[in-house]
């Protein structure tokens, strides 16, 4: 009875799912063909098992190097954002000090401004610091996040006051309370922020595109854009490269699917 009523639902969901996944299957198929097979009319739906397209990716771009770069960039950004944002968010949510709310509003204004409004001066700051074409340079502005602070502050505000009060009565100072009482409580919020930062950092294009030109210092997103610049429309090689670049994030998602979806659902509810 119940399953009978549900089959149209499954059909609709399956059609949608097919539309979501089909491009990736086509990408995989093309990545294993020669250019001649890929441009055959009508299309051939059999892979040519041409693994050399993948080898070509590794010779055209320092893939492993760029993969490591992306990992390092992402790890540093996530760690820094979690630390800086949670400290500031806790202070904004719970500590009292003159100018707190004005300061918070000023920080928040960054959220409202498109990245184009600070891109060029950021670039110049890095240039003057001699940090163009360095991982430090790519990472630096992304260590600080107005969004993360806002999100975690909301989270701290939603936590009950009594645990904190109890700790205070026990004589714990603000830092102790923050570090050993509040942070553990804020774990779901921290995980959400961490997940979103990983996603953003891994896929970020414009900033690293602007500040790196040395293939050895690029993250994968820029390396891929450069690969397209060199192989213009050599689709099999481009498909192989883009598949390799996307794969780590897809695997990470499959592994920690629940965390990620919870994290996103959390931002949507605020």
């Amino acid at each position, binding site marked *: 009875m119940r399953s009978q009523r549900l089959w149209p639902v499954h059909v609709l969901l399956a059609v949608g799912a097919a539309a979501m996944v089909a491009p990736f299957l086509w990408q995989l198929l093309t990545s294993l063909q020669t250019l*001649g097979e890929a441009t055959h009319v009508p299309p051939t739906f059999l892979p040519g098992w041409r693994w050399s397209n993948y080898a070509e990716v590794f010779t055209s771009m320092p893939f492993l190097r760029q993969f490591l770069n992306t990992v390092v960039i992402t790890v540093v950004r996530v760690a820094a954002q979690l630390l800086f944002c949670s400290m500031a968010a806790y202070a904004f949510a719970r500590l009292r000090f003159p100018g707190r709310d004005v300061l918070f509003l000023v920080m928040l204004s960054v959220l409202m401004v498109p990245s184009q409004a600070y891109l060029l001066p950021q670039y110049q700051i890095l240039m003057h610091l001699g940090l163009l074409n360095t991982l430090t340079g790519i990472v630096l502005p992304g260590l600080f996040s107005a969004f993360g602070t806002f999100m975690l502050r909301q989270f701290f505000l939603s936590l009950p006051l009594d645990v904190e009060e109890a700790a205070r009565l026990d004589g714990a100072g603000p830092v102790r309370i923050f570090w050993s009482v509040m942070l553990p409580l804020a774990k779901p919020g921290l995980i959400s922020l961490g997940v979103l930062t990983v996603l953003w950092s891994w896929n970020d294009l414009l900033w690293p595109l602007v500040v790196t030109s040395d293939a050895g210092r690029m993250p994968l997103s820029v390396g891929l854009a450069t690969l397209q610049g060199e192989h213009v429309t050599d689709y099999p090689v481009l498909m192989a490269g883009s598949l390799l670049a996307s794969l780590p994030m897809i695997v990470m998602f499959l592994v920690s699917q629940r965390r990620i979806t919870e994290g996103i659902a959390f931002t949507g509810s605020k």
Partner: protein
Amino acid sequence: MTRKLSALLCAAALVAAASACSSSTSAAGGGDATGPVTLTYGIWDPNQKPAMQQIVTAFEKLHPNITVDIELTPNADYWQKLQTEAASGTAPDVFWMSTTRIGLYAGQGQLLPLSGRPGFESSPFPASLNGIYTVGGKQYGMPKDYDTIGLWYNKKLFDAAGVAYPTAAWTWQDVIDASKKLTDPAKGTWGIASPDWTQENLYNDIFQAGGWVVSPDKKSSGFTDAKTLSGMQYALDFITKYKTSPTAQQMTDTDPSQLFASGKVAMFTDGDWDALTYKNAPGLQADVAPLPAGPQGRATVINGLANVIYARTPHADAAWEFVRFLGGQQANAIQAASGAVIPAYHGLGDAWVKSMPQFHLQTFVDQLDHAVPYPVSANTGPWATADQTILDQIWAGKLSLNAGAQQLKSTTDADLAKG
């Protein structure tokens, strides 16, 4: 715990403070000639990096106190980065220069003149290249390599259609006739690919028609000249009149050199630099012939790179030693053996020609006799970019050739007037 945290805070504050005051200047290394010196060498082609590294190693052996670091920037970003670095005084000491940018860089005092340096010699290089890299009577670039354009063709498609291979005797009409015979819509093959690319296609046709792009005094452009127009018309007719070339949209979706490499296109005018690509394309049996003769005879565009010295380098003497070495026979022989480019040095083309015996690469060297320099002005970049946008519109059928030519002329002339 507290101590750890405050240490972190201090570190963070330091980072932020250092970035807030953005006026720190990078200290220039010691400029004295006796101490060890490190030069940076800016290039953009990953295919040529091994050869460049070999040259650097050979140079360092002769000059033990000089180290050279190669900085590779992909072509798509090279000029953007270079210009920003030059503005802040941080460009590489020695770098690659193209004909389209020499006017800007030399004209704005970003380069050191080579003329008058001890041991400077321009005679081993083609006069047309020396000419392009001479601005205001002084030569700024040491020619590195050169390239010309040839008519690449797919032997299999020619055989299948029973058409004789192109020869040096071919004219425009021969190409048109052949392209008609070679086009087969049922199989999805075209006789020729005629994109709106200037160096590979349009400029050659314009010169073969007797037209011109930029006047010798660099004050006006020739896009509305009847002969120039007939050259452009010839290239466009393959798409609009004979329908023997893929359309502009098709060639955007799939690059013409890829269409040629995958056997969809029988003829394609392209530079020597793609020889390696066509050699490695699976199943492709190609060769190359000289460009056909137009109403005013033969012509091919010649272009080439040069090595230049940054005006604000702290190591001018060491940089000159390096550039002088780059312009010498030994360095050019290394380039030739690598097969990636034709070295600019006279008489070294042979080694390159022999590197791919399946192609008649000698064609590219022989065409030097009727080579026309790539058209440039004091600041080529802006009008070349603007022209490409207008050409894209003409090729896409959104502008008629005549209306487009008017726009090309007015845009280019306006930029030329800025000097």
